[in-house]
């Protein structure tokens, strides 16, 4: 059998029991230390990516004096008025009172109910760093800071300077393949197209539409329809000269198989009572909720979903646009949490945000530019909520946390953030460094925002 055929089969059946038998002998999967026993429970991670770089230091804001004054001085015409901020009351206080952007009432309610937490000033890092080290050019920094696609890649892959080939969710799926052998669908599913985040070294993600999978409509019905489909599949399975044709055929084959399976599973699942917003993000999260509702029909034990929404690159008109963006996120996240409660899986599903970077605290007139550290939201009943994790930085321009022009130097790394989620998801401690390659450089392997696995 030609090598390509072996590989193709492996791609096609990724996530099923057959995969292990076909795994390439040289592959990293053979070195894994995860116990190859099926999980006894169900868990899901849902990544909500905010494309463009969310200005999150306008999302969670110090409300009390003197910190609000520092904030207002830095942000000038972009500052959220003090009186508009939604007060939040963390269980553990650092002496400062905080408020949430007024557009995020839903997230405020989740936070107050102990079902949401904020991870503060987190960003891509290769090692802990300081302003002094950066100034002295002694710091080992992630490549191409402040560039959209490079920093998205960092969040997705955590690869630092290394060549980017897989995402951290993809590596989790690789590690867990032995534990989820009864799954009829790949662990990783995107509602927003192909993404490095979900791509494994071995396993391949499945992409469906915002409102679910789509079947091929052109075969027709009856015996001709069946033969048409068989002929179509024979053509896909042929050895193509072109690697592009080969890769394209793989996608078509996965589309064909999964659409039927997933559509049937969704069709036999009762509809949800929870209403979702009509926004793109609301639609995607609504579909994720339906997929979770159908989990048992597909034999799913572990799932990582990727949903996304854009428009956060607010170089212009930030004060007009940010309220709408944050309201949209808040409403969709809140509806999704409600749906997980309805389904009785609120403790088994954890939703978390990622974004390219935070934004400059200083203004370019009516907007902001690309920066570094930011604040992320984690939601679910397994989250140790109503807390802020990490140190809220000094927002003083030129202050100790400022790289320049109000770019916050992260004090927590994206690796730590990912590892904390991965551990809860069931990745053994010894494998966390494969998920998060820079984790060993940081003293805390777990940021503590998730309940014990």
């Amino acid at each position, binding site marked *: 059998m030609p090598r390509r055929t072996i590989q193709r089969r492996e791609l096609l059946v990724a996530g099923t029991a057959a995969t292990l038998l076909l795994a390439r002998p040289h592959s990293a999967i053979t070195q894994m230390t995860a116990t190859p026993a099926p999980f006894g429970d169900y868990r899901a991670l849902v990544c909500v990516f905010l494309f463009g770089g969310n200005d999150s230091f306008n999302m969670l804001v110090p409300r009390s004096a003197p910190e609000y004054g520092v904030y207002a001085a830095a942000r000038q015409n972009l500052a959220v008025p003090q009186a508009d901020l939604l007060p939040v009351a963390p269980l553990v206080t650092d002496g400062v009172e905080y408020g949430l952007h007024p557009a995020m009432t839903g997230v405020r309610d989740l936070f107050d109910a102990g079902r949401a937490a904020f991870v503060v000033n987190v960003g891509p890092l290769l090692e802990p760093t300081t302003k002094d080290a950066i100034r002295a050019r002694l710091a080992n920094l992630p490549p191409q800071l402040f560039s959209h696609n490079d920093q998205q890649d960092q969040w997705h892959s955590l690869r630092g300077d290394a060549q980017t080939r897989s995402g951290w969710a993809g590596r989790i799926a690789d590690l867990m393949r032995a534990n989820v052998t009864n799954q009829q669908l790949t662990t990783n599913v995107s509602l927003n197209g192909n993404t490095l985040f979900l791509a494994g070294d071995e396993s391949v993600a499945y992409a469906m539409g915002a409102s679910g999978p789509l079947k091929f409509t052109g075969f027709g019905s009856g015996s001709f329809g069946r033969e048409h489909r068989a002929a179509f599949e024979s053509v896909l399975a042929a050895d193509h000269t072109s690697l592009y044709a080969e890769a394209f055929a793989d*996608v078509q084959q996965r589309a064909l198989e999964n659409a039927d399976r997933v559509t049937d599973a969704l069709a036999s699942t009762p509809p949800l009572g929870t209403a979702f917003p009509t926004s793109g993000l609301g639609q995607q999260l609504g579909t994720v909720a339906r997929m979770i509702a159908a989990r048992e029909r597909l034999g799913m034990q572990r799932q990582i979903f990727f949903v996304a929404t854009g428009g956060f690159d607010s170089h212009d008109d930030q004060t007009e646009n940010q309220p709408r963006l944050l309201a949209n996120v808040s409403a969709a996240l809140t509806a999704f949490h409600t749906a997980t409660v309805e389904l009785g899986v609120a403790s088994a599903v954890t939703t978390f945000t990622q974004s390219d970077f935070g934004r400059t605290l200083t203004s370019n007139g009516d907007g902001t530019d690309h920066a570094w550290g930011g604040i992320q939201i984690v939601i679910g009943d397994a989250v140790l909520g109503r807390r802020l994790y990490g140190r809220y930085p000094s927002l003083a321009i030129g202050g100790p946390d400022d790289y320049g022009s109000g770019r916050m130097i992260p004090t927590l790394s994206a690796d730590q953030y990912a590892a904390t989620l991965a551990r809860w998801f069931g990745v053994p401690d010894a494998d966390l460094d494969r998920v998060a390659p820079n984790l060993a450089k940081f003293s805390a392997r777990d940021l503590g925002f998730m309940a014990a696995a």
Partner: protein
Amino acid sequence: MPVGRLLWLGAAGLAAAVLTGCGGSGDDPAPPPQTPPPPPALTAEQTAAFHFLNQATFGATVAAADEVVKQGYEGWIDAQMALPASLELPHLQALPASQSMSERQRDRIDIWFRNAVTGPDQLRQRIAFALSQIFVVSQVGALEQAPYALASFYDLLATQAFGNFRELLEDVTLHPAMGVYLSMLGNQRPDPARNIRPDENYARELMQLFTIGLVELELDGTPKLDASGRPIPTYDQEVIEGFAHVYTGWTYAGAPSFRQARRTVENQVQPMQLYPDFHATSPKLLLRGVTLPAGRSGTRDLTDALDNVFEHPNVAPFVAQRLIQRLTASNPSPAYVERVARRFENDGTGVRGNLAAVVKAILLDEEARSTTATDRGGKLKEPLLRMTQLWRAYGGRAASGSFAMSNPASMFGQGPLQSPSVFNFYSPTYAPPGELRDAGLVAPELEIANEYQNTVLTNAFATQALSRNSRSPGVRADDVVIDIGEEIAIAPDTAGLVVTVDRKLLASEMSPTLRDELTRLIDRLPATDDDFARTRRAAQAVYFVAASPEFAVQR
């Protein structure tokens, strides 16, 4: 595709099969259906020209291949370059003024398809489309209500497609569509008292995405490495800030003042204007250690800064690689990139940045013209190009002449000037998991060829071939219909039908597997001499080939 129509086809087909199977006992057998002789397969010369046209146009046709054979590749290119640009803006401006901006965006999509599918200046349109994926502006975002600006920007790319890159760079920089999209429009000098500093958006993306990229390149497009084997960044944050200061002081032309500039139908198609009081006067650090002295005019700063970028050694390999990826190959050899980059540096008459010479070098290169199919040569076709090729091969037209659709991105995962961000529809370095990635190869177009999007397009081909062909009942005036008359005429002759579709869509190079499967499938359908049976065979054959992996790639 209305499901009912498919079901009806299936049921009626079955009925026809039953009739042929058991009817006519005792009668004379019906005479065999009349079919014309099958067309000849394309000659090697025609086939090569066909591949060339898939690189240089919105889809090869046999007639165009004959033209190329007659004129020669270079002759055809020269003739194409001499044609005036088919434009978008005059079309929009000729429409009644009362329509809403979203209807006008629909008209913009319409004229884009008209030019792409039917425009005589095919090479120019294809290059404009390629340039629009490098100099990205998009309807998605702040330009949603500015269809005229987008049309005018696209016209600029079409007009300058064979001009000089330096001029193009300046025209793009000063176009209000770009000004709005990457926020140079309204960018102002620093105001330290209010913590305001120049917007870095355009400064960053012009270098990262339009001209030089993030790391220093050899002329062949491979990264230069430092002594410890690491790539060398082309710029740092200070240089971004230097350029950000350069791009200050510009907004819509003819405004009462810088701060009172508002978009109008007129000024969104005129180059931005400098308002000197809002230009930063400090010295500005540029690339390669150059600093612009303080106190100069915004126009002079802009000229010198764009010269500074244009003269950077990365521009030639960067632009060469990007354009090659859009036109001919996802993974060009370094030698191919270098040959094209050398033409960028010097067109043979000492001129740098001559895009006509660059386009010629890309299309006439031995690597693009090789007749040997390899596993990594060529590329996956973009979804839009798969559809336009089908339409061009089969004379796809609506009775009304319109190609209007409000949201092509929902069908294709891409649309003209509808990228989700300045990073285009796909990354030039996207590598799908599997053999391509393992071999260190990239396939940008595969980034949007995910399971869902592929299904949408495959279903669109089904609708097009099965229920919007020249015999389909119930098509509307605005439905694009393909003419499959030749296929219908020859339909009862399965082998002849396969040859006919093969030459129109696959340059007579259909693989044995595809031929066998298609033949077997069509043979399952009744070959009776009636319009229904003929049309069904013809339509199914076109759909089966259009949906195949072979049609999805460009050699």
